[in-house]
């Protein structure tokens, strides 16, 4: 949830950056692109680590 809120806040901050770079959005990664990718990957990896560490620690 925290990641989502942080992502939404950053989205607003980066709006002008994304709009300006939209023309080249398909060739270069913008700052906004990196932020969204890293935030989404982090959220998922943390979730995978958290759940699977508990599943494996259960030893069952």
């Amino acid at each position, binding site marked *: 949830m925290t990641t*989502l809120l942080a992502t939404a806040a950053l989205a607003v901050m980066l709006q002008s950056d*994304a709009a300006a770079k939209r023309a080249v*959005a398909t060739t*270069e990664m913008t700052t906004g*692109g990196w932020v*969204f*990718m890293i935030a989404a990957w982090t959220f998922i990896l943390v979730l995978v680590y958290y*759940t699977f560490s*508990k*599943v494996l620690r259960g030893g069952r």
Partner: protein
Amino acid sequence: MEKHEKHLDVNLDGVVTDREGWASQLGLVLAMAGNAVGLGNFLRFPALAARNGGGTFMIPYFISLLLLGIPLMWIEWGIGRHGGKHGYSTSPGMFEVLWRNPLSKYLGALGVFIPLAFVIFYTYIESWTLGYAVLSFSGQMPSIAGQSPDQAFKTMGDFLGAYQGTNNGWPVSGSILAWVFLAITLFLNIFIISRGIAGGIERMAKIAMPLLIVFAIIVGIRVLSLPGAMGGIAFVWNPDFSQITNGATWLAAAGQIFFTLSLGTGSIETYASYLKENDDIVLTGLATSSMNEFCEVILGGSIAIPAATAFYGAGAATAIANSGTFNLGFQTMPAVFSGLPGGALFCGIWFTLLFFAGITSSLALSQPAMAFLQDEMRLSRQRAAMIVGVIVFVAVVPIVMFLQHGYLDEFDFWSGEFLLLVFALIETILFFWIFGGRRAFEEIKKGQQIPLPGFFYPIMKYVVPILISVILFKGTIDSLIPRMLSKKWVDLPGFSKATAAFGDRLMYEFGLAGRHLVSDPAIAEQSFLRWAARLEMIALAAIIMILTSIAWKKYGRGRAAEGAGV
């Protein structure tokens, strides 16, 4: 969870059963994740994200995961485990436990019909991945040396047509290769399900899922090392904030979450029915969802679109994303790999990982029919597997033969999309509104290894059915009505979706403003065979309902539910 591959157990109704079970919690999570991870994770998600705002798509995507995907998954796990402790492995009995009404078992029969109809066409698509994997490893894929990207795409399209037998000039499709690999795929599926839950499905998941991830990482690293591949990553992730206020983006995200987690198929309930009363479902459900998201967002987002962009250039990225799942997987990707050193190996790995994604899903889709025949019709596992194999084979013949006439598309729409939403809505209402919201929530929490926050109660009771209803309504307007009338939506003259106000754009997405229905000759031409496909599905559903009725009369099924409902 205790180790209980096969055990004698006394269920809540005092009946001694010898129901199967999972050997380990990890095996269950991998099997459930295998059910969820399918071709859509690697082909549908990245194209959908790219088309719907790139990075900003992840905002409605994750919100949908939180408000729809994970809660609905817990609901299905809860129904399954609750049904299992009353001795039921499929939804006819599970629904009767929730709602003591003669109609409930027939509503539940949908949960046997849907996965069976789904697996009939899905097995055929899965067999293409096996066929392409074998052809790639053996160097039998066509060479595109010296061809432009467009020519290469056409060469691969012709090859796919030849494989499927759709360009043989005959009114019926199918090739020897397609039939051979279909037979092998079907045999593998039947062989594995005939080995049972722990000895077949779980063992396969423990092999296939780690291999799938390793193969996806290998292919991903190779793709990202291509010059220009980062353009594809940029295409998938660069945010387009204008899309965040677009209703279509939110609906696309909610739909993707629903379908990627294999919700509404009836297979999750069947897998969960093999749990014991106090086995955890909160943590295992969350682990399953997280693994699916890992395969979809991290692995799926880093392969197909970046590879296509590297090969075709960034300018063609939109066309590639719009070209459809099959084009991306079976034309674009082989074309990309065939131009690389060692491309046959990487192409083979790509299709092998798709095959693993496919077979773990088809095994899950086959299990409700298996369990129904074993538990309700009292057949042995081997005989049940044989019957499922025969049904799938007989039913898939017209799909193979009339592929280009919309036969597979019709199966896909009804059993792979529309009815999933209907079934999910029914089960949510039964569990949280008829069985009782508080009882249902407490049922889900039993044996929890991590605490289930209380705010999920109103989400499950109110938000989940509302979201499903909205997606279902859009599907009815967008796809069902035009399909049944052989029509299609076109924009009204003078209406511009891009410049319309938010309200008008939202109405547009529901077909209520800015567009109207016109005749679609392509669909109209296929009308006869599309109706044949619908009749085949209706016949299959009718047979399952009749068998349900016979089982309840002959074996007294349903008596166990006495007193269990509200």
